C-alpha cells in the first residue's frame, strides 16, 4: 500500500474517531442537561420550567441527529461536525450550571461555550459549498477561531469565577487560574461581551454581503439556513449587549427569551440543513440509476435522460468545443450557455478542462450534481460531445458552402446587371446612331452607304441578341424578378427539348428557388436535342421545395449535374436519383 493511501486511511480513521467522540460528548451533554433540570433551579434555565427543558432537549437532539447524519453521509464536509459542535457549545452553559457536577466539568463547559460563535460563523460562511470561497470570509473564520482560542487561554489563566461578583452558572474556584486576580477577572468578564458584539456585528454584515453576492450571481443562497443563522447571530449580539449592563440570570425574562429564541433558531438551522441532506440523498439515489439508464437508453440525448432522472424538465446540456470557441447542444447547434432565471450551472470537467455544462433548476444541489453526473455519465458525455463536435463542424462546412454559393451568385448577378445596363444600352445607342446615319445617306441618295449601314445595323442587332442570351446564361434575372414559376416557363420556351411543367407557387427564399432552377436547367441542358422530353414537378413540402424531374428516357448521364447537385447540398438539401429521373428536396428558408 502506498504512503499517501496509508496516510489517507489514517486520516479517515482519525476523523471518524473525532466525530464519534464529538457525537458522544454532545449526547452526554443532553443527558447532563436533563439531569440538571432536576436539581439546579438557580443556575440553569431548564430547571425553571419544563418548556425550557423541552426547548433545550429538542434543540440538542435535533442537532445531534442532523449533525451525525451529515457527518456520516458527507464524509468530506465540515457541516456535520460543526452542527454537533454547535449543539455541544450551546448546551455547554447549561452543563456548567449543573449543581451536582464536578468542578472540572464546570470549567471545561464554560470555556467550551466560548467557541459557539466561531462555530456558527464557520458553518454559515461555508454552507453549502465545501470550501469558503471568499478570502475575507476565510480570514474571518480563522480570526474568530483564533480569538476564541485566545479568550479560552486568557480566561483560563486570568478568570476565576470565585472572584466574579456576577458569576451565575458556577462560582466554583478555578484551580488553573494561576494569574487570576479580582481585577483580571473583572477585565475578562467585561471584555467578553464586547468581543461577542464586535464579532457578531461583523459576522452579520459578512453574511448579508454573501447573500447579496449570491443573488447578484444569479443563484439562490440557502435562505432556509442562513436566515435562522442571521437571526441567531442577532440574538447573540442582543444577549451580549444586555449582559453589558445586567448580569445574566434565569430570573430575568429577557434572558429567558434569548435562550428560547436561540434554541429554536438553532433547531431551525438543524432542520434546514437536515432537509438539504435529505434532498441531496434523494438526488444521489436517482442519479445512481443514471449510469444504468444511459446504457439502456438507445436514443435520446443526455439532457432528456437527466431530465427524467432528476425530475427537472428545464435541464439543458451544452458542450464546449474549443476550436470553434463556442457551446453547442447534442446536435451540434450553437447554444447560449447562460442559465435561465432560476437555474444553476453544474460544470462538467476533466483534468481541469471544461467539457461542458449542465443547466439545471437551482433547487437541485449544484455540487452534488457536478460530482454525480461527472462520474455516472462519463462515457455518455464523451460520446455525445464528440458527436456534437462533428455535427457542429459539418454544419460549419455547410454554412461556408452556402456563403460561397451566395457570393458567386451575387457576383454574377452584378455582372449580368452591368451587361444589361451597360453594354446592351450602348449597343442600342449604336443602332440609333446607325439609323440616323442611314437616314442621312438616304437623303443624300447614297445607296451603297445605305446598304452598308443596314448591314452594320443587322450586325448590331445580332450582337444584341447574343448579348441577351449571354447575360441570361450568367444569371437568370427573371428568377429574382418574377419567381421560380415564370423562370421555368421561360426555360421551357427556350429549351431544345420539350419541357412539361407542373409547378406550385411556393414562397421560398431566393437561394432555394435558384438551387431548383439550376438543377432543372442542368438536366435540360444535358439532354440531347430533339430527344425525349422532361416533366418537372415542384411541390410545397411544408417548409421545403420538393422537385421531381422525370425523364422520358433516363440517360444515367449525371456528371453534368454535379455542380447543381452540390449547390443543393450546400443549401442543406438532398438529391436522389431513381428509375425515372431525380428528386430534390431543398429547405425553403
Amino acid at each position: 500500500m502506498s504512503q499517501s493511501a496509508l496516510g489517507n486511511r489514517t486520516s479517515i480513521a482519525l476523523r471518524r474517531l473525532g466525530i464519534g467522540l464529538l457525537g458522544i460528548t454532545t449526547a452526554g451533554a443532553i443527558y447532563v442537561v436533563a439531569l440538571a433540570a432536576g436539581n439546579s433551579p438557580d443556575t440553569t434555565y431548564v430547571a425553571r420550567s419544563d418548556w425550557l427543558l423541552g426547548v433545550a432537549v429538542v434543540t440538542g437532539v435535533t442537532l445531534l441527529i442532523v449533525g451525525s447524519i451529515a457527518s456520516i453521509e458527507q464524509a468530506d464536509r465540515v457541516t456535520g461536525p460543526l452542527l454537533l459542535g454547535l449543539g455541544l457549545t450551546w448546551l455547554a452553559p447549561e452543563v456548567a450550571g449543573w449543581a451536582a457536577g464536578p468542578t472540572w466539568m464546570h470549567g471545561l463547559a464554560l470555556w467550551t461555550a466560548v467557541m459557539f460563535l466561531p462555530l456558527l460563523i464557520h458553518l454559515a460562511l461555508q454552507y453549502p459549498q465545501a470550501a469558503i470561497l471568499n478570502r475575507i470570509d476565510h480570514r474571518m473564520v480563522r480570526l474568530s477561531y483564533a480569538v476564541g482560542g485566545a479568550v479560552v487561554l486568557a480566561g483560563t489563566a486570568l478568570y476565576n469565577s470565585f472572584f466574579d461578583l456576577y458569576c451565575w452558572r458556577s462560582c466554583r474556584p478555578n484551580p488553573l487560574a494561576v494569574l487570576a486576580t479580582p481585577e483580571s477577572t473583572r477585565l475578562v468578564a467585561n471584555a467578553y461581551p464586547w468581543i461577542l458584539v464586535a464579532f457578531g456585528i461583523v459576522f452579520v454584515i459578512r453574511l448579508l454581503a454573501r447573500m447579496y453576492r449570491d443573488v447578484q450571481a444569479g443563484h439562490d443562497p440557502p435562505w432556509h439556513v442562513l436566515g435562522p443563522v442571521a437571526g441567531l447571530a442577532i440574538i447573540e449580539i442582543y444577549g451580549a449587549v444586555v449582559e453589558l449592563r445586567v448580569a445574566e440570570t434565569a430570573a430575568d425574562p429577557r434572558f429567558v427569551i434569548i435562550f428560547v429564541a436561540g434554541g429554536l433558531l438553532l433547531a431551525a438551522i438543524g432542520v434546514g440543513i437536515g432537509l438539504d441532506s435529505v434532498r441531496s440523498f434523494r438526488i444521489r439515489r436517482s442519479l445512481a440509476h443514471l449510469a444504468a439508464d444511459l446504457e439502456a437508453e438507445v436514443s435520446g440525448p443526455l439532457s432528456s435522460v437527466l431530465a427524467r432522472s432528476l425530475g427537472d424538465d428545464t435541464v439543458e446540456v451544452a458542450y464546449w468545443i474549443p476550436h470553434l470557441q463556442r457551446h453547442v447542444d447534442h446536435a451540434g447547434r450553437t447554444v447560449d450557455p447562460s442559465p435561465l432565471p432560476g437555474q444553476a450551472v453544474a460544470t462538467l470537467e476533466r483534468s481541469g478542462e471544461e467539457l461542458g455544462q449542465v443547466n439545471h433548476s437551482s433547487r437541485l444541489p449544484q455540487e452534488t450534481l457536478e460530482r454525480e453526473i461527472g462520474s455516472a455519465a462519463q462515457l455518455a458525455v464523451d460520446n455525445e460531445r464528440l458527436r456534437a463536435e462533428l455535427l457542429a463542424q459539418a454544419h460549419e462546412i455547410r454554412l461556408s458552402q452556402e456563403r460561397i454559393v451566395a457570393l458567386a451568385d451575387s457576383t454574377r448577378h452584378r455582372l449580368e446587371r452591368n451587361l444589361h445596363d451597360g453594354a446592351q444600352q450602348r449597343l442600342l445607342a449604336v443602332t440609333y446612331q446607325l439609323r440616323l446615319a442611314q437616314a442621312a445617306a438616304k437623303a443624300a441618295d447614297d445607296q451603297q452607304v445605305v446598304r452598308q449601314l443596314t448591314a452594320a445595323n443587322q450586325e448590331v442587332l445580332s450582337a444584341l441578341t447574343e448579348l441577351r442570351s449571354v447575360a441570361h446564361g450568367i444569371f437568370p434575372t427573371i428568377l429574382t424578378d418574377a419567381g421560380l414559376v415564370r423562370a421555368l416557363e421561360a426555360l421551357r420556351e427556350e429549351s431544345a427539348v420539350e419541357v412539361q411543367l407542373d409547378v406550385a407557387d411556393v414562397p421560398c427564399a431566393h437561394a432555394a428557388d435558384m438551387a431548383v432552377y439550376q438543377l432543372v436547367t442542368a438536366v435540360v441542358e444535358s439532354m440531347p436535342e430533339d430527344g425525349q422530353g422532361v416533366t418537372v414537378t415542384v411541390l410545397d413540402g411544408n417548409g421545403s421545395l420538393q422537385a421531381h424531374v422525370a425523364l422520358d428516357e433516363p440517360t444515367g448521364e449525371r456528371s453534368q449535374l454535379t455542380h447543381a447537385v452540390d449547390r443543393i447540398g450546400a443549401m442543406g438539401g438532398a438529391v436522389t436519383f431513381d428509375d425515372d429521373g431525380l428528386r430534390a428536396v431543398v429547405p425553403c428558408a
Partner: protein
Amino acid sequence: MRVVVAEDVMLTREGIVHVLTEAGVEVVAEVGDATHLLRVVRTEQPDAAVVDIRMPPTHTDEGIVAARRIRETDPQVAVLVLSQVIDSGYAMEVLQEHPERTGYLLKDRVFDAAVLVDALRRIVEGETVVDPTIVARLLGRRRVEDPLGVLSPREREVLGLVAEGLSNRGIADRIFVTERTVEAHVTQVFLKLGLDGSPDSHRRVLAVLAFLRA
C-alpha cells in the same frame, strides 16, 4: 399623334424622342420614372405612352404596373411597353386586363422609326401589339407532339400574326390576301385548336398566347 415617353436611361430616352419627333410625332412630355409618368398622363392626356418596363426604384416591373394603372384610369390612352427581355410572361401580364390599346415591344428595334411609329399607330387605333420575336419563340417551342401540327402552313402563318396582335385587315395586308380569307383562316384555326372565345374579339390575342404558352 401626341405621345409621352417614360425611360430612365437618358441616352435611350433622347433617342426615342428624336426618332418620334423626326417621324412627325409630337412628344408632349418625357419622364424618368413611373410616378412622373402617371402624373403627366393625367395632365397631358396624350394619345399614347411609351413606357420602359424597368424603372426606378426597384428596376423590375414598374413599367408594367404603371401600364396597367393607366389602362384602368385613363383607358383612352394607349400604352406601349418596352423591354429588353424576351419573356412571354411579361407580355401576358401587360395585356392581361386590357389587351386593346396595349403593346409589348422589344427595345432592339425601338430606334427603327418604321417599327416604332407603326406600333404606336396600331395601338392608338385600338389594336394590340406583341413583338414578333416573342411570338416566333413561342411558335418555335420544342414539342414532341406538336399541337400546331393540325394546321396548314398558311394557317400557321395566320396564327403567328394573330399572336402579334394584328387585326384581320393588318394580316390581309401583310400576306396579300383579302380580309374575307383571313377571317376564314382565323375561324378555322380557332376551331382546330379548340381555342376559347370568339375569333373576332380583341381578346383573341390572349387566347392564342395562352395556348402557345401552355
